[in-house]
């Protein structure tokens, strides 16, 4: 009876890894084969419709169905800095925003100024209760050192900026070195 019900169900193509996919790598079409399952099968329900282009967070083993949980999750962005770059955790949640870029601010003397302008927002860091407590931004290793050093003296703040603002040089806001 169960087989009959399954047979009557709609088919679903499920992506399966043809090789081990390591964390940090993007999924390519040639990394996948497609297996037809009943759309009600638990493995089909949890599979991602099209994982091509997504970045692997947890290793996907050869022969496994590619599931969304093992791919980039915006709540765990600290793990996917672009190669050569770093993900800097700045204390303080970002708050609701649709912007994808931000400035990192501090205070020099009595004047606020920017340490980094127009960097990419990678996502939020959370405390042990899962409450957002920080913001991850993309920085170079050199910027990371400068910002960490500045944070020893003054608190930092991440302020979202529009794409147009992010790409425009604003030397008047930059902290003097």
């Amino acid at each position: 009876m169960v087989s009959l019900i399954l047979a009557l169900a709609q088919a679903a193509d499920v992506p399966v890894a043809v090789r081990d996919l390591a964390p940090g790598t993007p999924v390519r079409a040639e990394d996948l084969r497609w297996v037809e399952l009943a759309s009600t099968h638990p493995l089909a329900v949890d599979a991602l419709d099209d994982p091509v282009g997504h970045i692997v967070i947890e290793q996907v083993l050869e022969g496994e169905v590619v599931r969304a949980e093992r791919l980039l999750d915006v709540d765990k962005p600290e793990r996917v800095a672009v190669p050569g770059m770093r993900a800097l955790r700045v204390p303080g949640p970002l708050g609701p925003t649709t912007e994808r870029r931000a400035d990192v601010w501090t205070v020099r003397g009595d004047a606020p100024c920017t340490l980094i302008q127009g960097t990419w927002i990678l996502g939020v860091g959370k405390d042990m209760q899962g409450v957002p407590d920080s913001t991850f931004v993309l920085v170079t290793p050199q910027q990371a050192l400068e910002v960490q050093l500045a944070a020893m003296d003054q608190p930092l703040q991440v302020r979202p900026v529009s794409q147009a603002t992010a790409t425009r040089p604003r030397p008047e806001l930059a902290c003097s070195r």
Partner: protein
Amino acid sequence: MLPLTALALAAPAVAPMTEVPVYTRLTESELTLVDVPDALDHPSLVRSLEEVEGLIALEPLLPGEPLRKERLGTDARSTLLAPGQDLVLMRLMRPEQWAPGRVDLVALNEEGACLLVQDVRAHGSPEPGILSLALPALKAHELRWAMTQLAVVPLSRNPVDRSSVPELACGGGLSVSAIDLTHQVGSLLRLGEPAAELVVTDPGVVVAEAVTPTDLWMHGRSPGRTAAALHLSSGPPVLLDISVKQEALPADTEPVGGLLAFGETDVVDARVWPLEAAQVSIENGRALLRPRQPGVLQVFTRTTDGTLTLHDLTVLEGWPAPARGEPVLPLKPGKKRKVTMPAPIVAAWSGDDAVASVELKGRKARVTASGKGTTRIVLMDATGATSSLRAVVP
């Protein structure tokens, strides 16, 4: 409509009922059996609940996902650490939660910031404000020291990016001394100042004991490589990069049940390693060794003038055939025989009183057979010279 061939099922496989966090030990109560379509069958799928009981998840396990053996480990050490690595728990400045991944470690002080260690495997936060890190053993010792001197903060990096930035690396660092040891024997390490503490990463590879405040006796317990941090009475620790190699056995031999009197006189301290390998005692200023089990051992002696000496010895399972010229004293059970030396004998010892005992009578030693077997009798004259003979009770 789905073709019926797509419904063919392989043998059921084990799957978690809920998400299992990484490094969690599995219990049967959180697992179930799920049907696996034939097209998704794989040789490393786990087929029975008994197979995984007590194993550790090396990666997060997803509900309903057929469990693969590659995702499971057997013990905490092999799960968390690659060979030669050590675990460091780093206290964060804030009670943050960190997910497993890879990080650089930034050292901060008034003079600036630099990358103390680059590309370190992070195991995440076992509790708020703690980050668990796996580093090469030497680096782990260096990090522990740095954390007592500087602010150290983690910096996330891409998990597949193995590159480093040498121009941002912290300069200096602790001095490292390489030490090569031989399996089952060791060496003495003389220090410029008293040692306060020695922290060895893997005591299964090397163990150490202080024989004086400024002398460490290091033993190669098993072949391999490990690191240690030697904390002196002041200043930063010295790091030790220790290799234990399997090399040729020591040429000096003595069988179990034998007796060896070492050449040094005025001995005030003598120890053997491994401890259970032999009995060592000091009598009449001489260090005497009675081997108890076959293998390699090492004896340390210290004399009144402070001289430290090491002796390496291979303990044989049985007595070899007598060498040319080696004196052998045949004894009948319960009988005595006298041994006369050119000079007066001042001390005499038996390796095993259960085989033969010895007592002094002026220039002579009287050897009495106690039971069947073979042992060594050592005689010492007034000049400190020793000679030995083999007592055999058939």
